[in-house]
């Protein structure tokens, strides 16, 4: 089953490699991994999307907790939560018709055109992974120049929190 795990860890050199190394050494899957400092600059927050059986997920959370750099973690999948991912997509727009089409689609998906050149539009879009997939699917693949996705960031709904 797919799990989204939020991890608070010391914002120290090597902390990311410990997490990444743990996953590769123990043969766990990583679908995506995002990390950045929090409002407290001594802490980083990581969102890991992984999948595995209940046993594997239990081991993943235990092994993560065992890392000395890991302060706390929360398996977001155990409760209601929100996931968001950012997509930047560059699309070829040589014809006016394509421009209009793309603009309309961007609006429908509540994205924004953030850069325009004589041949390309660059569009930003946030949402769940499914939504980003749907948008990419909706664009003519021949026109896609490049895409970049941030990976999932997650947060629990309501009063459930992950903080020190």
């Amino acid at each position, binding site marked *: 089953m797919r799990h989204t795990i939020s991890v608070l*860890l*010391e914002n120290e*050199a*090597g902390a990311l*490699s*410990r997490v990444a*190394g743990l996953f590769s*050494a123990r043969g766990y899957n990583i679908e995506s991994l995002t990390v950045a400092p929090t409002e407290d600059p001594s802490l980083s927050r990581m969102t890991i999307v992984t999948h595995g059986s209940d*046993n594997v997920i*239990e*081991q993943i959370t*235990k*092994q993560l*907790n*065992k890392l*000395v*750099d*890991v*302060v706390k973690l929360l398996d977001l999948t155990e409760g209601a939560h929100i996931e968001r991912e950012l997509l930047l997509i560059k699309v070829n727009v040589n014809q006016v018709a394509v421009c209009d089409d793309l603009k309309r689609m961007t609006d429908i998906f509540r994205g924004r055109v953030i850069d325009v050149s004589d041949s390309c539009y660059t569009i930003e879009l946030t949402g769940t992974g499914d939504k980003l997939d749907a948008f990419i699917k909706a664009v003519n693949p021949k026109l896609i120049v490049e895409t970049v996705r941030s990976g999932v960031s997650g947060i629990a709904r309501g009063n459930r929190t992950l903080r*020190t």
Partner: protein
Amino acid sequence: MANEAENLTGAEIVVRCLEEEGVEYLFGYPGGSVLHIYDALFTRDHVNKIQHILVRHEQAATHAADGYARATGKPGVVLVTSGPGATNAVTGIATAYMDSIPMVVLTGQVPTTLIGNDAFQEVDAVGITRPCVKHNFLVNDVKDLATTLKKAFYIATTGRPGPVVVDIPKDVTAHKTTFEYPATTELRSYKPVQNGHPGQIRKAADLILSAKRPMIYTGGGVVLGDGSEELIQFTQSLGYPITQTLMGLGAYPATNKQFIGMLGMHGTYEANMAMHECDVLVAIGARFDDRVTGEVDKFCPNAKIIHIDIDPSSISKNVRVDIPIVGNIKNVLQDLVKEVQNNTRTVDEAALSKWWAQIHNWQEKNCLYYDHGSELIKPQAVIETLYELTNGDAFITSDVGQHQMWAAQFYKFDKPRRWINSGGLGTMGFGLPSAIGVQLAYPDRPVFCITGEASIQMCIQELSTCKQYDLPIKLICLNNRYMGMVRQWQEMFYDKRYSHSYMDALPDFVKLADSYGHLGMQITQPNQVENALKEAIALKDRLVFMDFITDPAENVFPMVAAGKGQHEMVLSPLSPQMPVERELA
């Protein structure tokens, strides 16, 4: 206490921190990146607090520190240089990691200005050691040095112990700062659990007392957690049978009648059968290693399992357990003993005596049978004789292979920390250097290294270290001219295709010992074994290398083959209980 006004170099700080930690021995080997530290050791020599032990290879430094830690419970401390110094130490670090041994390894590093430049003798020591340490640090600023070392010792010795590497660039050891060694340290991200959950302990007590066919299974955690006394009290108050893993031997006295032998691949028949048939299993400080469980799907099929361990990630890793208890072994066992005493239930004595009768039946198989009438020296006989001559009270280190299994089977350890071997990683070459650490810790106690002619050659250079520090270790080399365990597997599972398991061109170990300034003996006849051992033991101030020329065809039995269940273990084909004709190699 440190004088707060002192302005010291990083190198001096390293030495002072080790003194503050009460380090007796520093096992190391100098090199470019650690020269400042070696200079600080030299100039600090008059204080005479730390004795540096110069090994002949960095791997041996880590094994020696490891042996010291296993025998004393105190952390082993290592100092090696950057690059090859660090990489050579890796095997020893991984060995300590697998067996949860407290160790602090200081590795020199190229100056911070050169890191990442492929400088001379540069490796990413933090990166290389990351998967085989409990934690590691790179010290970028001399101001962080003392606090980092404090953390390193704290992390290495608390919770589930393990090795911690501190990588120190050369310029950091030259820079100066005010020295103050923190009295304590706290990490918000690292809080080892102490006490077990009272509710879980109560449930465990209920289950333990409801057992008809109980079994206690303990491991290295009891030794590491100094829980031997509590384990004895717990086990004897119940009268239940107990088995121990390779790593756990000695925590419960092997000569006590409730101990039914080691379990696992080469454990006793009765221990493995009792594991398979038990209805309640109490696992204490053991991690359900594959060499213990055999095929996991066939493991303890009828048992409810209680698992006490300090490391939550050990619980339900290989085998699902019913009542997990996370905590310090000593504390949990104390609480559990109380809960058992205060419980309204009592031991089901009728069921227990029936269970013991069954176990005694299995014991009659005499699973450790070997041929006592052989004209060749039987390795088991050497260990048995050693056991008798030392009254079971020696420190025994071992290398890895058949000799290790025979030592575990035939030397009955009554006390913890006497049996020093590489269980998890299975590191050949561990025996001699770890004996160095043990002998230094206990200079007046007998220390034996049980080894084979293949293993011993992996760290043979340490005979030189033994000479330098006058360490009267006794080496028991069970020389069968094969990598015995490899040969045994090839005989049993590869149709006797002995691919590269024959030790050709062996040195003359007697002359070799002599050239290192030690005494060598070769023993070829069974009737010489006892006198030779007596003679060696009497030489209290010399290292003796005893080269026993043993039966090359002897195999370790009983055995649970890979992929088999514990109950499918086989006895020696020569055993009267297994009248199967064995073809010898």
